[in-house]
């Protein structure tokens, strides 16, 4: 009996495989926006990312290759098992053609494997780890908005050039934090700066005062925050309380979003340096798009949300050009078509799936400089994509080399 069951399953598998050979599967292009809708990353992605994806679909007239576009959403709750379960179900049962966003590196790495195995497309915007186009790269995975390498290089490089010669790292004690720290330290040293010390704090620490005290007594010019989310917010807030920036040391947030600055308030976050892939108030194009985004969500877009828009838009254009949603053909078209929109400037898609585009070094304005809500950044420098991101050879992606 088991043998018969197995044979039946094989037939089913064969059937679904053939359905994907050409044309639009299921007569609809289904985009699954998978992200954190209730937790730490809900504000930087969440429903806003789904709105961004829908805006890209509307721009195409709601149709691609003559078939309707549908956007569905789910909450992975920052759990890799829940996320991979949803991704599998979406692909196996619900006919999802492409999965978008997926903040939280752990969940994104899990989804990357599933999408590769099932041959769909993965448009990564929210996740940070450069491993997604490095040792875990996939022919089906595209990494859009930013990554750890770009953040480390952008901030590290620029701040040493601005005179921040000595660094002290406040590092979240797990893989992501270590990666961010070592990437940044390498850039600092390559530019002639030095690292005077580092302190590792456990993830989700409430009290940073003792770590900040060590950073303060180190006398380093720059305190690099190699952490994320609530840890970054708490360390910045408490740094203000202990008068660290007033005493001449500068804080560099290595992973910080505009929603974090919004939550902190300018009083605490002022003069912080950070690298971002997008700022709403750069020119007329970004302002126009961000305004219609704000009309739908009530907030300005983060670089993650803008990245989802840009990636989905490019994907849909590729489907249009290929005339099918079969992943291999679409991926080929995505690599061939030029990428250019209000988000992706001077952009180029590398064979490992990394989108190289201009990044920006920003300084958070003081309350006096800010003209109102969401007027938070002063763009200090535009960092060319080639300078910010790892080249194909550096990425360590085994399949694309």
């Amino acid at each position, binding site marked *: 009996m088991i043998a018969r069951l197995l044979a039946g399953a094989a037939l089913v598998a064969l059937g679904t495989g053939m359905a994907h050979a050409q044309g639009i599967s299921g007569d609809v292009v289904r985009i699954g926006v998978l992200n954190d809708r209730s937790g730490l990353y809900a504000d930087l992605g969440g429903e806003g990312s789904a709105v961004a994806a829908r805006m890209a679909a509307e721009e195409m007239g709601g149709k691609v290759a003559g078939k309707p576009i549908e956007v569905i959403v789910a909450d992975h709750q920052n759990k890799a098992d829940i996320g991979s379960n949803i991704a599998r179900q979406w692909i196996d049962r619900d006919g999802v053609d492409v999965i978008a966003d997926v903040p939280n590196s752990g969940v994104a790495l*899990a989804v990357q494997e599933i999408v590769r195995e099932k041959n769909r497309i993965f448009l990564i915007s929210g996740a940070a780890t450069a491993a997604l186009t490095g040792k875990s790269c996939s022919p089906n995975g595209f990494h859009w908005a930013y990554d750890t390498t770009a953040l480390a290089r952008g901030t590290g490089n620029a701040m040493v050039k601005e005179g921040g010669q000595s660094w002290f790292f406040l590092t979240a004690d797990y893989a992501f934090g270590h990666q961010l720290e070592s990437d940044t330290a390498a850039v600092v040293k390559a530019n002639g700066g030095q690292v005077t010390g580092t302190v590792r704090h456990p993830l989700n620490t409430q009290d940073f005062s003792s770590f900040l005290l060590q950073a303060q007594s180190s006398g380093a010019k720059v305190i690099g925050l190699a952490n994320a989310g609530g840890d970054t917010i708490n360390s910045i807030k408490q740094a203000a309380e202990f008068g660290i920036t007033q005493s001449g040391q500068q804080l560099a947030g290595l992973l910080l979003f505009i929603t974090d600055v919004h939550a902190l308030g300018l009083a605490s976050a002022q003069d912080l340096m950070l690298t971002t892939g997008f700022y709403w108030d750069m020119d007329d194009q970004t302002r126009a798009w961000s305004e219609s985004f704000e009309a739908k969500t009530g907030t300005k877009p983060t670089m993650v949300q803008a990245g989802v828009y840009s990636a989905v838009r490019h994907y849909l254009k590729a489907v249009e050009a290929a005339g099918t949603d079969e992943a291999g053909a679409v991926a080929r078209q995505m690599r061939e078509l030029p990428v250019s929109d209000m988000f992706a400037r001077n952009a180029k898609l590398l064979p490992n799936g990394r989108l190289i585009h201009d990044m920006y070094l920003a300084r958070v304005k003081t309350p006096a400089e800010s003209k109102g809500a969401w007027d938070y950044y002063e763009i200090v420098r535009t960092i060319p994509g080639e300078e910010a991101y790892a080249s194909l050879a550096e990425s360590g992606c085994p399949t694309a080399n």
Partner: protein
Amino acid sequence: MVTDIRDGGRGAVGTAGTSWLRLVAGAVLLLVLLTAPLVLYPIFLMKVLCFALFACAFNLLIGYVGLLSFGHAAFFGGAAYVSAHAIKVWGVTPEIGILLGTATAAVMGGVFGWIAIRRQGIYFAMITLALAQMIYFLALQLPFTGGEDGIQAVPRGHLFGLINLNNSLAMYYTVLVIFLFGFAVIRRAVHSPFGQVLKAIRENEPRAVSLGYRTDQYKLVAFVLSATLAGLAGATKALVFQLASLTDVTWQMSGEVVLMTLLGGMGTLFGPAVGAALVVTLQNYLAATQLPVTVVIGAIFVICVLVFRRGIVGEIAHRLGVRKA
């Protein structure tokens, strides 16, 4: 009169007169389990089975010894990490990987149990919780666990070098066999003389002591057995989902298994499995809605504790008037 938490146990099924009925029921259940993947999504079913085994293992402690462990996630997740690491990095076959994970959970169970059984009741719960939290921080900081990312892309490989587990039906039947094995072990333990002593400890520990039983040793063995089977469930889950992550070692996970057991019926054989199936289904369903999952789970917790302490299976057994063995 003071009723205790072991009250659920009073609904336990087990009379001789209905043995043929139970045989038929068992056969039907087995048939359902065998054919389920044709109707339902196999990955979902495997998740249910893993959690069902986890809950049954947990129930061995709460339902039959009366000890509430709030740290079982440590065994579940710890085993998941070890087997994922063994399979992915050392390249061992799936069955060896699962065995290694399960053995790790057994050792952890021995250490935890040795520390925790010095205290009873609430203290026991808090100590297991604190110990598990330590494992959580270790899992976060040790290099081999991959921190927040967990261990990803664990290859399912070939069982005994023969059966390709990448086929979801093959994987499903493997998980089913593991579950049935674990369930059989629990059933055997409960109905053995060893199980009788455990129940005696649950009902009245001083009396068991005065009868000459070294209750601490019995409790420790039960704790290790429960931890081992929880580890087996965790290791299997790591193989099914091809990953081990921090979720599995959080205290919320320890809370979830308490809920599954409470909802299904503490001290009943099938209750925890029913509870696990319900909770997993509910989580799957809620993930697609706007309702916040934790609020619903919390509300079920409160309702169970206030008005539904026997749990579903316990309640059914009680209504049917089945006497306890």
